[in-house]
């Protein structure tokens, strides 16, 4: 049951934010440990970081628009409290993955 009072865009882009932040953190680990992927990302644009940014923001926007329109425009079936916890948790997890990876690399 969905008792959410939030509009479809908030729920869609909220879930998209959570997914794309964790995806970006995992992409950091994969690209830094996979020479082939790093080389590919360096050739697609002027810098691997630029490619990473474009993929990250592109994923957020596309997924956000798709999820916002889902469920007859009501957005994802998620409670307001569930969305809040997902957004907070994903940002904490994303930052923690990146920090832990580079600390382990020292």
């Amino acid at each position: 049951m969905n008792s959410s009072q939030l509009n479809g865009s908030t729920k869609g882009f909220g879930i998209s934010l959570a997914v794309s932040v964790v995806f970006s953190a995992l992409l950091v680990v994969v690209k830094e440990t996979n020479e082939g992927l790093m080389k590919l990302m360096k050739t697609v644009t002027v810098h691997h970081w630029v490619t990473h940014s474009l993929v990250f923001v592109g994923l957020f926007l596309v997924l956000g628009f798709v999820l916002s329109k889902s469920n007859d425009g009501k957005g994802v079936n998620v409670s307001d409290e569930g969305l809040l916890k997902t957004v907070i948790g994903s940002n904490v997890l994303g930052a923690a993955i990146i920090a832990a990876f580079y600390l382990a690399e020292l």
Partner: protein
Amino acid sequence: MSHIILLLHASTGMFFIFACVWVYVETLNCTEKNLPRIRSACVAAAALMWATFIIGGYWYVYFYAPDKAVILKGPWPIAHNFYMEFKEHVLMMLLPLSLFMPIVASNKLPSIPSARKLLLWAAGMAIIIGVVMEGAGAIISMGAKLGLMPA
């Protein structure tokens, strides 16, 4: 020129944090009267974040290499190996987060407590991450400065 770009990056980043504080305080006192101000502040925060990212990204891609070499040869290689690597990837997280704030503010904030709570958390996280980014930038600058000082 690269120094001006770098100062502009830090300045727009600071103004982004100010805009998020503005969103936070206005949302704590949300009514129909200040709702347009909250929405304007959210748009301003998003615009400032994107400006910070584009200006900082331009400097990072085209001007950072000499500084990186100095840092790595100096006494604080951690300024690049951890702080810059961490900063360049965590800063990205603020792009969708800053775009998410105007989306949350499009709800009827005065009558929906969960929307206000979500906006407070989004702005609060943006403030914390923003301050951490400013701190990381200061450490990177210090790493370059120490690298240039005679041993």
